[in-house]
């Protein structure tokens, strides 16, 4: 028997979703598990670096976002504007930077949460009316208003914290 943590309904053993309230009962931390193993897996880390992260020197990345919880790095290169959010199944919304592998759902990241934009030497951040808000160094942004970002600023999308590092800063 599996007791649903949400509604205390007694579900049959082997149930994956609560029959009463549809809460997920198993495999919930699937994604997190993958990340923690990746962190210790040298081979994976290597691949991660090759695929996603190009170091500043010699690459065209103009900046990068560091996930404070997991230490992973998302490079910002080849274009000047990125939408950020999480891809959710059954939805046609495709943010340029998908945060769903980093527990974005649990952290309250909206599907289309924010935009990061390079405008000349200036880097700006815009909250797109997200449900749980965007914070820069702890200060909540007004939705749809540009906010200038500086090297080392801490951005929070809901509870997901990222640090922005800017090249040549």
């Amino acid at each position, binding site marked *: 028997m599996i007791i649903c943590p949400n509604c205390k309904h007694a579900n049959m053993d082997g149930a994956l*979703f609560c029959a009463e309230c*549809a809460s997920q009962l198993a*495999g919930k931390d699937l994604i997190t598990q993958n990340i923690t193993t990746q962190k210790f897996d040298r081979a994976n880390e290597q691949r991660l670096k090759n695929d996603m992260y190009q170091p500043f020197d010699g690459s065209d990345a103009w900046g990068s976002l560091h996930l404070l919880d997991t230490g992973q790095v998302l490079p910002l290169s080849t274009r000047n504007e990125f939408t950020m959010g999480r891809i959710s199944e059954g939805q046609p919304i495709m943010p340029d930077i998908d945060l769903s592998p980093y527990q974005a759902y649990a952290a309250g990241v909206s599907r289309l949460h924010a935009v990061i934009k390079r405008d000349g030497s200036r880097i700006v951040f815009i909250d797109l009316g997200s449900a749980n808000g965007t914070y820069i160094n702890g200060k909540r942004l007004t939705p749809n208003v540009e906010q200038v970002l500086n090297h080392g600023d801490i951005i929070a999308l809901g509870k997901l914290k990222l640090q922005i590092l800017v090249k040549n800063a």
Partner: protein
Amino acid sequence: MASNKPDHYTTLGVFRDASQEEIKRAYFEAAQRLHPDKNVAAGETELFLEIQQAYEILSNPKRRNLYDATLPPEIDVNSVVKHETLFSRSNLVKLGEAQLIYMLLEVSPREEKESLPAPPLNICLVLDRSTSMQGDKMDMVKATAIQLLRSLRAEDVFSVVAFSDRAEVIIPAAFNSDKKKQESRIQMMQTSGATEIYNGLKAGLQEIRRTVDPSRVNHIILLTDGQTYGDEQDCLKLAEEAAAQNIGISGMGIGHEWNDIFLDALASKTGGSSAYISNPKDIQRLLVEKFNALISTYADEVVLEFKEQEHVKINYVFRLQPEGGSVAIESPMRLGPILRDAPLHVLFEFIVDSSTLEEDIVSLLNGSLKISIAARPVPVPPIRLNLKRDVHTNPSPEPPPTRILSALSRLTLYRMQERARSAADSGQFDEAVRHLQNLATHLLSKGEHSLAKTALFEAENLEKMHAWSASGNKDIKYHTRALLLGGQKEKVK
């Protein structure tokens, strides 16, 4: 002496260890289909003779033994289709209580998509022309029927039947017909009378039988906007007859007065499902979509024949794609078609009784998949499906496969809606309201704001008036079903 001819077992479409009973049945089925009095396509008489020869040998145990001795060993790999089964957990657990296990079955063509043949169509459009169809709905139906007529290939057969309390054949099923004349026949359709689906379905089946042919995709599309009264059972019987002849039925309901439970039941008898057209504007889009799906048919039907396993209950079966829909739990189980660009995905939920868990291995399902492919006159070798799971003392540490999780996360919403509905039907309004509120919570978290709103609105309706709004239950049902498909499509991308 090597020959390319299939062995007698393949000709009849049975396994080598088939019982005399099974051989007899396979022979009767094939003979009915290919009898010289009925068959139309070239080469079918020869095929009929081969089947007779096969039966003569295999039905006689002595001759069968002699024949078996000449056969090369059985190759277990199916040359035509491939299938995959995925379980929610790798083993069952020794426990003093019943437990659940899920299985995802995927069946797809083995060949490359491009090289798959496109079978000709034999389609009958059965149109409701009762008074309520007047105006927009009828105009859209006419325009779409004409558009479909024009888009046909030379080898396709297209017939149209209109019905109210009587049925009238607007376009008879025939080859080489005069399209100009047919268009004007469609234009001249008038609305009048009440909705009696049985009459329409019967006439439609009659038309489609004129040109029914196993090498075609034979399909009836039923379009209605109203309830039929008293003839539901007869309709279901017709659908069973149609299914036995490999004629599929799809139902499309316009507006909110039609009976979706009935239309779903009718279509699922043949492995099809129903669609909901909330706005007459969508008639064209949905009919054309349906038509395109039929044109891209690879196998018109995958049928699961199985024996009930003791202490294991098949609790719920749902087709995730190509077209979402519940599957009726009976043997033979009509799972649905395989399209050239969309394999068949079906999710099974088993309940395993605690008494079997004393054993070391539990058999969940024992049966075979039979696949009829319109473009192949020779029967496809059946696929044996013997699903077993080990029973261990401890649950397996592996998490369930993500494919099952993601399918189930969406299916759970659909089932929530089903639960709300059956609770409301049996007068348990509190329970129905609770289910709808839970559904709304999950819809919100998935970003389905407008559908969540509809669910909450209906919850309020049920609470206050103990009734659904006019279109509420259909809106919720078909939209939660559409979420299932949306997810699938995204995966294909």
